[in-house]
């Protein structure tokens, strides 16, 4: 039993490290809390964000936005850990928090880009739930 302690503590260490990587940092948590409050206000049945829904949203081609920007992946590529390119040819740092740790930590910046990109891709504003799902997915990446 004594012998198992190092093995167990190593396993705990690994688990917590994995958690630490995919858990939102303090900056992202503040932004997520705000979207959660908005989502709850909009729909009292709101039961938390989902990385799965965020992933589907990220990869979707909604066909309701501007013709040159059919999907989030047009600029951010289908792999959020990769460098993307704007339509004007400029590099865009990865959205995945593991690759760019300060993503989604500045609410003004995050809101500005949601406003722009949701309108370009979906032809409408994103809901707080969509934003939260999206960030939750990016935190898991």
């Amino acid at each position: 039993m004594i012998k198992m302690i190092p093995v167990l503590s190593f396993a705990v260490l690994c688990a917590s490290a994995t958690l630490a990587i995919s858990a939102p940092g303090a900056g992202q948590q503040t932004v997520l809390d705000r979207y959660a409050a908005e989502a709850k206000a909009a729909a009292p049945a709101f039961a938390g964000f989902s990385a799965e829904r965020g992933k589907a949203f990220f990869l979707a081609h909604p066909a309701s936005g501007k013709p040159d920007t059919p999907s989030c992946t047009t600029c951010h590529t289908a792999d959020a850990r990769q460098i993307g390119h704007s339509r004007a040819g400029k590099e865009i740092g990865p959205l995945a928090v593991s690759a760019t740790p300060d993503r989604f930590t500045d609410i003004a910046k995050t809101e500005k880009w949601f406003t722009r990109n949701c309108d370009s891709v979906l032809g409408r504003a994103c809901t707080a739930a969509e934003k939260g799902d999206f960030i939750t997915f990016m935190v898991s990446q």
Partner: protein
Amino acid sequence: MQLRQVRVWDLGVRGFHWGLVICVAIGAVTGFLAGRDWLGIHVIAGSTIAALLIFRLIWGWLGSRYALFQSFPLSLRAVRHHLSPAGRGEHHLGHNPLGAVMVYALIGVLALILLTGAVALGGVVKQGPLAFLMSFATGIQARSLHNALAIGLLVMIAAHLGGVVLESWRGRQNLARAMVTGLKESAEAPQSAPVAGHPWIAGLAVAVAAAVLVPGTLALNALPGRGVPPPALDAAYVRECGGCHFAYPPSLAPAQTWVAVMDGLDDHFGENATIDSATATVLRGWLADNSSEHWDTRPAVTLRTTDPAQPQRITAAPAWTRFHRRIAEAVFKSQAVGAKGSCGACHHDASTGRFDPQQIAIPAKAFQ
């Protein structure tokens, strides 16, 4: 009659002559044949010629016998005599009267080429000692004159070479070699007291001239160029307008372009690029105050005329198209560049709005 070797051309004259040959050759090749990115070498050649001319002026007063201006005065009567049958038999150890005319003409034309070159450099690309003074329009006129004078110089050089061949044949001695060795053959009695020149005093004079001119030129170079925008862009502008592309300095387009861009941010080249209204108001004011009408750099003046069909596109302006006509579409589309609007990919000083010719380097990857 015994021929003897006489030292005619001293080291100063020979050094000046061959130094000039090298610098003029470099200046001509970089000016006529090489592209704009050779401007740096061209300017170095020109500056060296200026130094050589200043040295020659000093040496014309303090050099040895045949280097002295008084030994080859500019005289039409002497030229006429030289060309008459009577003058044909006469020997001139130094410059003959016709050669003297050529020397002064070459020095005069070279001086004018340097002057117009400095005005063009200052006005057109806002570099060098006259950048603080010269407008773009004056620079362009000076550049035309500079080009015409340079062609004139080539003609004169051809005439000079013809003259050397002709006189070598007439006098039965190789004058080109004499300019290398300094020695000529002469039947004349040895000069009683050859004027040896005053190399130490001349050296001192050169040092004094350098001590005044070099720091003076550097000080003028350091003055802000006329009509050149300050290099730093507004931080909010870079943040708001530099996210999707290079943040275009406002001096690259007229006010009309910026108004159209700011009015159409909700559908900006097929994208939503909206900005919160408080920031937008600030940026509108800053763009209006810094549009190309306020500046005198080459991009500011030439890109002021936009394509009426797409006034928002800097890269559709007629001058832009002309400047980039030799660059293949594939280079713009390559990953290393991205698009025509990625000014900074090739112009390393693009964010300052200067676009100096020496700052252009197309990334090698763009050609793969």
